[in-house]
């Protein structure tokens, strides 16, 4: 697959001193932070937060056209040259999700889709059965499926085998800000995946995003943690750094945890006071 550089960013994004592009479906992205756009109180605020976050990919929902909002969000993203990842939020069945994805492909001229098939409004957790069916159908229709999934290593691998372009396990239920509730499962998903793993949902603050990257995720997707923060622009910038910091820490290689202390200053050559 040819790699294309998106939005005129540097050809090979740098993380610290290391060339480290995030490549998904053959497309290089300059940031490992994917932003959702839901929950922002104003379009201006959203635009500023998106810029502060450094994101190059954002999710959007598909809803009925209302003349009052003409061009608004779509135009904002066009102007800032941010790639869109339409989602199927609000879909409860594979059938709904497939129709929504088809509409999104038509409207936004992308075959990328963030597949969300939600079981109920109380938990907003994915319905695994419908998710599997929808993935299979969308892959057959030529979509690049970013599958929003439970933090279930078995399900994640199955989605990949069915052709998902990326798997997006949740850290915690949407909008809860509870962080990564099962880091072990996220690590297990990462260890078995050969497509990008994007930690999606549940992020509360910057350290959660850093942890996701330290666990080996390829990227982090979040919305509420920025859009509903007291100062979305500051929070957007915090996440930008958190994702870079977590990625660098993963690549840098953490030290092993030890039971006992290990002095960092040499004991030899101390002055002796008698």
């Amino acid at each position, binding site marked *: 697959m040819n790699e294309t550089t998106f939005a005129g960013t540097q050809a090979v994004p740098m993380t610290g001193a290391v060339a480290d592009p995030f490549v998904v479906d053959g497309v290089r992205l300059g940031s490992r932070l994917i932003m959702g756009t839901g929950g922002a109180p104003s379009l201006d605020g959203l635009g500023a937060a998106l810029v502060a976050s450094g994101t190059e990919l954002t999710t959007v929902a598909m809803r009925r056209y209302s003349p009052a909002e003409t061009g608004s969000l779509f135009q904002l993203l066009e102007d800032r040259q941010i790639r869109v990842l339409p989602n199927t939020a609000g879909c409860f069945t594979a059938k709904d999700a497939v129709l929504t994805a088809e509409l999104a492909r038509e409207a936004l001229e992308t075959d990328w889709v963030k597949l969300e098939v939600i079981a109920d409004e109380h938990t907003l957790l994915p319905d695994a059965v419908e998710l*599997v*069916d929808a993935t*299979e*159908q969308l892959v*057959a229709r030529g979509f690049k499926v970013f599958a929003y999934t439970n933090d279930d290593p078995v399900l994640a*691998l*199955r989605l*990949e*085998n*069915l*052709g998902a372009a990326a798997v997006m396990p949740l850290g915690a239920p949407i909008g809860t800000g509870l962080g990564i509730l099962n880091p072990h499962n996220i690590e297990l998903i990462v260890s078995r995946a*050969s*497509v990008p793993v994007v930690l999606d949902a549940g992020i509360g603050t910057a350290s959660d995003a850093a942890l996701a990257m330290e666990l080996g995720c390829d990227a982090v997707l979040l919305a509420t943690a920025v859009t509903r923060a007291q100062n979305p622009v500051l929070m957007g910038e915090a996440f930008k750094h958190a994702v870079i910091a977590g990625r660098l820490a993963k690549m840098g290689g953490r030290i092993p945890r030890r039971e006992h202390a290990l002095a960092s200053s040499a004991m030899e050559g101390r002055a002796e006071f008698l």
Partner: protein
Amino acid sequence: MGTRAGRAAEAANDAAARICDTGPGTAEGTAPGDTSADVAVIGGGVIGHGIAFEAIRSGRSVVLIDDAPGSGASWAAAGMLAPVSELHYQEEQLLELMLEASRLWPGFAAAIDAGAAGTESRAGTGYLTTPTLAVGADAADRRALADLREVQQASGLSVEPLTVREARTREPLLSPGISCAFDIPADHQVDPRLLIARLADVLGAEGGSFVRQRAAGLLWQDGQVAGARLAGGGSVRAAETVVANGLGAAGLEELPAGLALPLRPVYGDILRLRVPPHLQPLLTATVRGMVRGVPVYIVPRQDGTVVVGATQREDGPSDPRAVSAGGIYQLLRDAQQLVPAVAELELLEATARARPGTPDNAPLLGRVARPDGGNVPGLIIATGFFRHGVLLTPAAAAVCRQLMDFTPDPRWAGFRPDRFSRIPDTSGDSPKKEAA
């Protein structure tokens, strides 16, 4: 007598060479190993039996020469009649022959059954029109099978995608973890061991003879092949001699000058397993899987067994029938990934045999050019069927019959057995100009 030959073929696994057992139907008073007929077929595998059957059907008398009929590659073969799933990239001409064979199979099987009706045998050939499901294990297997499907469709073959759920509705014991499934209705099966047994029955009943000896070479007379010379002395004289002894063909003496038969052994391991009653039926369709890029198949038989195969090795073991532990491991590992219940089956048999491979994977089928132009009279080569011997049997038989009738079909001229040879040219004509 015919059924005796059939049972002998069924038991050929342990067949020791039966010297000078000229088998049923030998003319009274003929000295052992000194026979004559219209057609001598060297080699008693599926191909040899099929050709002999077709020759008998055309009113010719036939002698089949083999010291251990049915004990070679035919003994191992699973018997998938799978022109669609056996399609490989850039083998279009072979596909045409495979499709022709596939078209011939129903009539061929019916003719054998009709012939066998007059014998003591009760079993059929195991010819079944069970469909085939192609399934993949991971995302790369799914893409590989989807790519192959495009070529299969471009060749006019029917390969329909199923969702995993649909596939598992049809075959509930398929693993829920498979990555894709395709329905291939045109790929069927036969049981090669039953097939050879029934063919032997019919040949016996129709007056064919069996010479239980190894053919050592060709007999020549007045510049034409006049039969086969037997290893134990004696000979079989025939107007047409068909060389159908698989890998052994290249080792025959007195082959035409300059004829190279570039056959190489491609070993395959294959398993036969019994399905315990509580798991029956394990499958109703043949499952052809690709598991992390490695092919594996599971063929369900009517008798409650399944055949799991087959590896492809070119490792040259010291004993050509030695079964590879690694090969068996791979087969069971991959079969189990597609159908987890395979782990609960009873292992009946592990078999290894060598398939006769050729440089272009296509058979060596036809007559041989003569240095001074024309073809060597009295000689037909039919070997090198590689993985496709069982499927191609009726086509090989039909092609041989056409050659004997001197009405060759130009479509199959590309399979001439001398295509890898440099026949010394003494006529000024290229041998290739001569149609089959």
